[in-house]
Structure formats: structure tokens, C-alpha cells
């Protein structure tokens, strides 16, 4: 594995971003999509090759997968020994993420060829996609915590650009700003966390940092535990703050509010960023620092667990009431990421204890496939119906057979029905939770049922429920392309197959907390409960939404309080608005504005006034009268003469 090959994986999308971003509008208006897709094809091929080499050829030494730093360049040196490097790190999770990111991105690129066809800013769209892919790959490959922060922000920027792609739509503009500000706010925590960890560990490099902060005899660990604030050690503070950054990107409570709104972006973007890649960056971050969490600071890991579990349940409840299909998927994403988070939270380090870690990464892997499939399928439906609302759909199974079949596969996968991929990863997560924390296990099990319910509510509302007839006006419009162009169907079919088979990957062999293969056995007893809950959820959805009835209305009226709360997303947005508009703006914003207007501006104005008044006074001398000048000239000369002749020594 040469460093060049691996460096090319992120650099190819960067090249296509630069090419399309700089010249796309003029020269590649039509061919931009092909260029972007080809560069991604190169990246995906290289990362598959890298993964093959790493997992099967050279990554393993004595049965343990090594952390390989294939490239290391010193970037900024502040003082001897204090420097920021740029490096490429290969270890099981980064290689796994490489494959996921490039593959999903490739699928989205291909899909967008059809979905975004005819857009005015087609090549710009592809340049943004390439930028995002580059940043995400850079994030995944980062070898030190500062580098990951740089790419973290780049990911945020490209997400901002893509959500706000339809910049003439006010709601999209608002959503992109919201996503950017909320995640930036969380990133502040991340930055402070980085500073704390790096200050105590005296390094930014992941390998060294993890080694120093987990080795109980190292002086750095002692200093990190000894220092602290409010009775919490500096190490815990650092990890919690880093986790806040991760929670912001991964839409964990209470930073989840940006994710549903981010659905204003084009649907393939949602599939790429808000389902499979960027939103799992937080999970990836915690997994990256997992040894520190697990070995040195179980308290912080417990926070991760509870936040994850709470988000999983909370989002699942909301997802049951939403009517915008993309928003349902957004909340479902949040819920599944909650799964990954608490799976990390319940995990221990090393050997059998590390089951949660493996399960979390496994779920990340399978979720990326079926959630991207769900979003792309939803995109195809939206493309056909021209609406996001469930009410405008129904009975589409005959009109869109491919979409219907693949969507069904994805729904079964996310509901955890065997033998689809979600079943295996979810079963592993639940097993890990069962052995660690019964409360979380219960929450997870209940959430699994809810997941099945809302996914099949979505499925039945789109593809069954009623005949698709109320859009006769659109029939002629669709005469041309039918269900969807081939470029849109192909990714659906590929992902559909993957959503079935990825569950059979012996994931523990490759990814585990300590690098050694984890032979997770299949526990039949553990599998029964989630499957029963999942099937129950599907059954309830079948009863309520298979055909039109007043059952949903009756159910919602019996649980009126809960239903209303969930429909309004439990008023979290309103709480945020209250906090920002009423409290932050009034107590901090307005006083600072006053100070800015009166004190700061006053000082600046005073400087200007002084210069103006002073020059007005002086301008009297500039009379414009030649003879006036001549007199002063003469007086000056006489003074000089007098000075030289009489006063000189």
C-alpha cells in the first residue's frame, strides 16, 4: 500500500471540486456530472483496493490490526516539538469508513446524474458534492486531532453549501444557516475539548494521545486526572466537550434541531450527508478516541450512552407523527445514530467486552447502506410525485416497481427483520446493551418496535393506502421518463442488494475495539425479542396504514398529549427560539449591541471627528492666494537667514 494511492482517495474529489468549481460554469455545464462521478469512481476503486490490502494482506500483524500512519508531513511548527502534522492514518475503522464514504458518495453521484438533470447549476452541485466527499475522506483519514477538526469544519461548510443549494428558497437558506450555526456552536465545545486534551497529553497525534491518556503510569494521564473544574477532572471535561462536538454533527440531543430542517437540500444530498456520512462523524470521533473513553474515563462514556439512548427514543417517537417523508427519514437517522452512540456507550475495551464497539461500527456500516437507499428511494418518489407530503402519495407500488421493491428491502432492514442487514447489527447492539445496562436495553428494544412502526407507516403511506389517481395532471409529464431514469434506478438496485447481504459480513473479524478479531456468536435468544418487537411494529403499521381508515385518527386522539407533543417535535425548536430570542438576545445581544454602538463606535467616530475638525482648522492656511504664500515664504526665508547669521554659534 503506497501512500500515493491512499492520498489519491481524497485528492481525486478535491481535484474535481477545483476543476468544476473554477471552470464548471463555463466549460463543463453538462459534463460536470460525469467528471465528478468518474473521479469518485477512481476514489471508490482505490479505497476498495486499500481495504482489500489492509484487511487481507498487510494490515494484520500477529492477529492484531495495526494502526498504520502511511503519510506524515509536518505542517506547522510552533516550537521544536510543538507542531501540527498532516497525516493519513489507516486502521480498521478508518478503512471501513473509507469504503462507506466513497461507495455511498459514488452511488449518490450516479443517482444525481438523473435526479439533478437539467438543473441550472448542475456542475456547481457536483463541485459541492466533490468538496464534501473530499472533506469527509480527509476527516476519516486524519491522523491527529487538529487535522480532524480542520476537516470537521470543512464538512460543515460543504454541508452548509449543499443544504442551501436551492438558495432562492427562503426555507433552504434558513435551514442551511441553522445547520451551520448549531453545529458551529457544538464545535466550539469540540475545540475547547481538543485544547484540553492536547494540553494535558502534550500531543495532537491520535496514536500518542491515546497511548499517553490510557497508560496508567504516564505522567500526562496523572496531570489530566489531577487537574479539573467543579469536581470533574480535566480529562472528563475534555472528552465531554469533544463529545459535544460529535453530538452536534451527529444530531444528538439537544443539538438535533438542525437535522430535520436540513432536509431542504436536494434529496441525494440528504442521502449522502444526512444519512450515511457526515452525521456519523460524531460516532466516528467517539470511536476514534474510544480507548481513552473506555479505559480512562467511564463517566464520560456513560454520558455518551444516555445521550445516545435518549436521542434514539426521542427521535423515534417524533418520527411516528411526521408527515413529510424526508423528515421521517431524518428523525429515523437521528434515532439510528442514537443506537450507534449508546452501543459505544455500553461497550468496554478489548476482547468480548468490546462487542458494543464492533456493533456500533457494524450498525454504522449497514445503516449507511439502507439509509442511503431509503433516502434515494424517497428521492425517486419525490421526483415522481413532486411533493414531500405523505398525503399526496399512496398506491405507488404499481407505478414504481423498482423503487417499491428496494424501499421495502430497506424498510425491512431498518426494522431489523432477518435476514436483512439491520437485523444483524441491531441484534449485536442489543446484546451488548443487555449485558451492560438493562434500562438502555429496554429503551433500545422499545425503539426497535417504534422504528419498525414508523418505517412501515411510511412504506404503506407511500406505496399502498389508496390508489394513486389524484395526480392525473402529471401523467403526461411522466410519460417521458416513467418511474425514474436508469441512473437513478441503478444505485437503488445496487444498494438494495447490499442492504440484504451486508449483514452477513463477519464484521467482528475486521473491526473491534483493540484490533484483535472478535468472534461474535449469534445468540438466538437475544434475537427473538427485537424481531418480535419489530414484527409487532410492522403489524400495527399494517393495520393502521395498509388501507385508508380512521384508525390513525382514533389512535392519535386517544394519545392526544403525546401525539401533539411529538407532532411539534416536543417544542425543542420553540425552547431554542425562546432561549436565543428572549434570553440571549436581550441579556447579551442587546447590551453588546449598545456597547458596540455607543462605546466602540463612539471611539471610532471621535477619531474621525478629530481629524475632520483639525483639518478644517488647518485649511484656513490653504488660502489659494499666491501672494499670501509668497509672504509666508519670505518670512520663512528671512527667519532662516536671521537664524543662520545671528544665532549660529
Amino acid at each position, binding site marked *: 500500500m503506497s501512500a500515493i494511492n491512499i492520498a489519491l482517495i481524497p485528492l481525486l474529489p478535491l481535484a474535481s471540486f477545483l476543476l468544476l468549481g473554477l471552470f464548471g460554469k463555463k466549460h463543463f455545464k453538462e459534463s460536470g456530472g460525469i467528471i465528478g462521478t468518474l473521479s469518485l469512481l477512481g476514489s471508490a476503486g482505490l479505497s476498495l483496493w486499500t481495504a482489500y490490502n489492509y484487511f487481507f494482506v498487510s494490515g494484520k500483524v500477529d492477529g492484531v490490526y495495526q494502526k498504520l500512519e502511511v503519510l506524515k508531513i509536518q505542517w506547522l511548527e510552533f516550537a521544536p516539538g510543538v507542531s501540527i502534522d498532516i497525516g493519513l492514518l489507516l486502521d480498521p475503522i478508518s478503512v471501513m469508513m473509507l469504503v462507506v464514504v466513497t461507495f455511498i458518495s459514488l452511488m449518490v453521484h450516479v443517482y444525481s446524474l438523473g435526479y439533478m438533470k437539467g438543473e441550472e447549476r448542475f456542475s456547481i452541485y457536483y463541485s459541492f458534492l466533490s468538496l464534501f466527499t473530499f472533506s469527509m475522506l480527509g476527516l476519516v483519514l486524519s491522523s491527529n486531532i487538529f487535522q480532524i477538526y480542520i476537516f470537521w469544519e470543512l464538512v460543515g461548510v460543504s454541508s452548509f453549501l449543499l443544504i442551501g443549494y436551492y438558495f432562492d428558497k427562503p426555507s433552504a437558506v434558513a435551514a442551511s444557516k441553522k445547520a451551520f450555526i448549531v453545529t458551529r456552536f457544538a464545535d466550539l465545545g469540540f475545540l475547547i475539548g481538543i485544547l484540553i486534551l492536547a494540553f494535558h497529553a502534550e500531543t495532537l497525534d491520535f496514536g500518542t494521545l491515546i497511548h499517553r491518556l490510557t497508560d496508567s503510569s504516564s505522567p500526562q494521564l496523572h496531570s489530566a486526572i489531577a487537574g479539573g473544574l467543579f469536581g470533574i477532572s480535566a480529562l472528563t471535561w475534555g472528552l465531554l466537550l469533544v463529545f459535544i462536538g460529535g453530538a452536534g454533527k451527529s444530531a444528538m440531543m439537544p443539538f438535533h434541531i438542525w437535522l430535520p430542517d436540513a432536509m431542504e437540500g436536494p434529496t441525494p444530498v440528504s442521502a449522502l450527508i444526512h444519512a450515511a456520512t457526515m452525521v456519523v462523524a460524531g460516532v466516528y470521533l467517539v470511536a476514534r478516541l474510544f480507548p481513552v473513553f473506555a479505559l480512562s474515563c467511564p463517566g464520560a462514556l456513560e454520558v455518551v450512552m444516555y445521550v445516545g439512548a435518549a436521542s434514539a427514543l426521542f427521535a423515534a417517537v417524533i418520527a411516528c407523527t411526521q408527515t413529510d417523508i424526508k423528515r421521517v427519514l431524518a428523525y429515523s437517522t437521528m434515532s439510528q445514530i442514537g443506537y450507534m452512540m449508546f452501543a459505544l456507550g455500553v461497550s468496554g475495551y478489548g476482547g468480548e467486552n468490546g462487542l458494543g464497539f464492533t456493533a456500533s461500527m457494524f450498525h454504522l456500516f449497514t445503516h449507511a447502506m439502507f439509509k442511503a437507499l431509503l433516502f434515494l428511494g424517497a428521492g425517486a418518489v419525490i421526483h415522481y410525485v413532486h411533493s414531500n407530503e405523505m398525503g399526496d402519495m399512496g398506491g405507488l407500488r404499481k407505478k414504481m416497481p423498482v423503487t417499491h421493491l428496494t424501499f421495502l428491502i430497506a424498510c425491512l432492514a431498518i426494522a431489523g427483520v432477518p435476514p436483512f442487514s439491520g437485523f444483524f447489527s441491531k441484534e449485536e447492539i442489543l446484546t451488548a446493551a443487555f449485558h451492560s445496562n438493562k434500562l438502555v436495553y429496554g429503551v433500545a428494544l422499545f425503539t426497535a418496535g417504534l422504528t419498525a412502526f414508523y418505517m412501515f407507516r411510511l412504506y404503506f403511506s407511500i406505496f399502498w393506502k389508496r390508489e394513486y389517481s389524484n395526480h392525473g395532471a402529471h401523467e403526461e409529464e411522466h410519460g417521458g421518463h416513467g418511474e425514474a431514469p436508469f441512473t437513478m434506478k441503478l444505485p437503488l438496485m445496487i444498494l438494495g442488494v447490499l442492504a440484504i447481504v451486508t449483514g452477513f459480513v463477519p464484521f467482528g473479524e475486521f473491526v473491534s475495539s483493540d484490533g484483535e478479531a472478535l468472534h461474535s456468536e449469534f445468540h438466538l435468544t437475544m434475537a427473538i425479542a427485537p424481531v418480535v418487537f419489530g414484527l409487532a411494529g410492522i403489524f400495527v403499521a399494517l393495520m393502521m396504514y395498509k388501507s385508508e381508515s380512521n384508525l390513525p385518527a382514533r389512535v392519535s386522539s386517544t394519545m392526544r398529549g403525546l401525539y401533539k407533543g411529538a407532532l411539534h417535535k416536543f417544542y425543542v425548536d420553540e425552547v431554542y427560539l425562546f432561549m436565543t430570542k428572549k434570553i440571549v438576545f436581550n441579556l447579551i445581544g442587546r447590551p453588546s449591541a449598545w456597547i458596540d454602538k455607543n462605546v466602540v463606535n463612539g471611539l471610532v467616530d471621535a477619531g474621525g471627528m478629530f481629524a475632520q475638525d483639525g483639518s478644517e482648522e488647518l*485649511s484656513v492656511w*490653504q*488660502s489659494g*492666494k*499666491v*501672494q499670501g504664500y509668497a*509672504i509666508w515664504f*519670505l518670512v520663512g526665508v528671512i527667519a532662516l537667514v536671521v537664524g543662520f547669521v545671528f544665532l549660529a554659534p
Partner: protein
Amino acid sequence: MEVGLTQILLLSTALFFIGVYGFLTRRNMITMLMAVELMLNAVNINFIAFNKYLWGGKLDGVFFTIFIIAIAAAEAAVAIAIVINIYRNFGSIDAEDADSLKL
């Protein structure tokens, strides 16, 4: 009484200050130009006088004088061109009228 250096210097000084006086008091630009010429010629006389009385064998002062006369001729040409342009623009050659660069 022999005409010596002192007398000539007195003459040139008188001539110079007559020029200064004329430059400061006249508003007519042509007159001011003439005053400037007076000052230049006062300097010329100084050069000649010093050359004759102090360095009799040399010609440096004479050279300078001729040089100044040539420059003065050129200067007069330029100045009169300026005056003509001012007259075209302002309709007057009074120095106080040409003040449009003032605030």
C-alpha cells in the same frame, strides 16, 4: 568715487527687493512675472559682480548668468502660456481670481 563691490551689491539688493515688493503687491500676473524677472536679474548682477571682483581670472559667474538668462526666457514663455490659459478659463489675469482649487 570708484564703483566697488559694495555699491553693486547695494544696487542688486535694491533691485531684488523692488522685485519682491512688486511680486507681493501687484495682482496682475504679468506684473508679477515682471517682478520675478527683476529678482532674477538682481541675482545675475550678483554673479557678475562677484566674478569680477573676487575671481577675476575665471568665467564661472558669467556662465551662470548666461544660463539663468536662458532659463528665464524659457520660464517667461511657460509662465505667459499659463497666464493665457488662466485668462481663457477665468476671464481675468488677476492672481486672486484663480482660486478654484480652494475648498
